């Protein structure tokens, strides 16, 4: 039924490899450094959604460093590029913030279709397996059948769900979920919210209200607020991350849909500019396809 943990991780890495490798593996580094090599690297970075600004900075860095270090071989440049990418990403890994206070609340945000509900389900499964008791709060009261979708996940994982009618006030759902988890002494509440475009101001305000509701229960505890970003999205993800961060303190990012051929390179500018830790990556449709983000593996996979 369930694949072994080892196999699962291997599969995930292979997938990551596959999507990322294609780019850099197409470049032959076994030549002297010349203008065309820089151009090749630039094209791969752009095609990976790294964006013009970050790409330019990386290329500029490579030019200067290679001069400074008197590097002439392509292979050496490759090492330098690896070093640079790792350098950018290493500040952006992190794990879930869990405290001893019960219940811990994990709030999920993101735009429509980024994969919030699915990620909530997968995280609930992961946490339950780790021995925590988990309750889901169905605060997406807007999208048709969102509550049903979350309920299917709750049943699949075997955790409790607290829900209201469609159209109900999401903050009220959150209040009830935390309250009920508290009275039952459960460990973790995961809140699924409606997808919202970061440009819709009133919806961003609604998020702030949800957050205030959570903070009423434990005023001194920062709420673990995870932004779900679709890995296939291009330069817009940077705006998404920025705007969500401005509206409410985002404490972590989950990048989904990295099992396709999209390269998820927007991680690089996001990490560079915003320094929000990337906590998980979604690499498949199975319940077990959520993995902690490992910058080293991510960079290595780009080149293997």
């Amino acid at each position, binding site marked *: 039924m369930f694949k072994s943990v080892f196999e699962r991780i291997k599969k995930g890495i292979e997938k990551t490899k596959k999507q990322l490798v294609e780019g850099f593996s197409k470049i032959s580094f076994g030549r002297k450094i010349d203008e065309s090599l820089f151009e090749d690297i630039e094209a791969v970075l752009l095609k990976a959604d790294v964006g013009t600004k970050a790409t330019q900075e990386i290329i500029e860095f490579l030019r200067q460093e290679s001069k400074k270090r008197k590097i002439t071989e392509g292979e050496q440049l490759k090492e330098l590029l690896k070093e640079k990418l790792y350098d950018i990403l290493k500040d952006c890994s992190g794990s879930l913030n869990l405290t001893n206070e019960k219940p811990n609340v994990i709030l999920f945000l993101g735009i429509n279709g980024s994969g919030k509900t699915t990620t909530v389900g997968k995280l609930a499964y992961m946490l339950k397996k780790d021995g925590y008791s988990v309750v889901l709060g169905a605060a997406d009261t807007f999208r048709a059948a969102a509550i049903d979708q979350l309920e299917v996940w709750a049943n699949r994982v075997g955790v409790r769900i607290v829900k209201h009618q469609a159209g109900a006030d999401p903050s009220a759902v959150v209040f009830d979920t935390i309250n009920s988890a508290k009275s039952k002494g459960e460990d973790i509440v995961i809140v699924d919210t409606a997808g919202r475009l970061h440009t819709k101001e009133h919806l961003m305000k609604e998020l702030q209200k949800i957050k205030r509701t959570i903070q009423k229960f434990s005023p001194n505890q920062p709420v673990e607020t995870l932004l779900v970003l679709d890995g296939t999205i*291009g330069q817009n993800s940077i705006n998404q991350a920025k705007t969500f961060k401005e509206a409410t303190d985002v404490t972590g990012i989950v990048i989904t849909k990295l099992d396709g051929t999209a390269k998820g390179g927007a991680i690089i500018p996001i990490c560079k500019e915003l320094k929000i830790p990337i906590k998980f990556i979604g690499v498949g449709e199975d319940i077990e396809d959520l993995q902690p983000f490992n910058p080293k593996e991510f960079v290595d996979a780009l080149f293997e």
Partner: protein
Amino acid sequence: MFELLAEKFSSVIDRLKGAKKIDEKTLDEALRDIRVALLDADVHVDVVKQFITDIKQKFLGQEVIKGLTAGETIIKLLYDETLSILGGQEPPALNKSEKPPTIIMLVGLQGTGKTTTAGKVAKHLKSKGFRVGVASVDVRRPAAAKQLCTLASSIDIPCFVDEEEKDALKLTEKVIEDAKKQGFSYIILDTAGRLHIDQELMEELVKIKEKVKPAEVLYVADAMQGQDAINTAQEFHKAVGLTGVILTKLDGDARGGIALSIRKILGVPIKFIGTGEKIDNFEPFYPDRIAQRILGLGDIQTLIEKMQAAIDEEKAKQMAEKVMNAEFTLEDLRDQIRMIRSLGPMEQILKMIPGIGGKIKDLKVDEKQFVKIEAIINSMTPEERRKPFIINGSRKKRIARGSGTTILEVNKVLKQYEEMKKMMKKIKKSGKMNFPFKLPF
């Protein structure tokens, strides 16, 4: 929609507009800015390269068009090139089967908005007078069928699903057979989201297509997608043969680069765009209008159509007469506000006006101001609305209390109204039309 491109393009255009002569250096600088703008908007790297080369070659290889300055020539080249990438003048028509029902099948990745779009397509066709049904063969995403049926019932369209049947092919047979019995003109078939590299599911899609023989296989694509958008679309195209594309999530600050890439690389037309969460936020894709928007030239045609759809002609005539006779009352002001608001959010409307489109990136219109004005007028007696001059201090106090505003705000509305009346008298004299009232920003 396309704000980022519009902003960058119009700044380049402003720079070039007056130029009588353009040397290669100026051209290169302008093209460099355009290249960055296109890449930042997620247009595919290869398409960007081609675009820049084409413009440069065409400009250097041709004489300045007669009657145009060098700057205007380049703008025309930019426009023509953008338009040709978007699909030229092609009208966004849907294919029809020889005999009904015409089946429209929606395919795509997860989370691009297929189900919502199925509802929108159905509504669009229904509003044109066709009998439409929707069916879901999504056996994967929990509650997908329910989502479709909830949407369908909100627009009074029959929905065909079977949540018990877990085999997508058997399900396809069943729902299509059921739907066909109803004598629909169109059946919209929603399929499960899938990854283009998932062979098993792609084969399933091919089989579904063989079974239902759709007249349209529309690829639903998220306008925010990055560089990989093209790979994905190509794989779908190879597998099932796409007949068109629907771009979703073009509201917000989607950069929409895919609009420029997809047509160029796939050769498949974009047929519709989704511009919001609501079921009416859906428009046919007109390449010329979009090209104008991308270049920051506004989109006056869409604005006019929206006005025609929203505004009752009879009422508009009455209004015009009142304006001409200077009989404009506060009641009329209220009607006018309602009319304009029914066109959609002010921000969207303003961006369609030529000359504004590319220039106001972060325009925020406080829609609440309109609500306030309406509340203030609502709190007046009919007599006060018709003869505002009778509104004295104590009446103002009452109106402010009734509308939850302040006397200051009541005064402001009255003042604006007076100004408008003055303006209308002027219009009557000069015969020139101006924007009917001051905008709250």
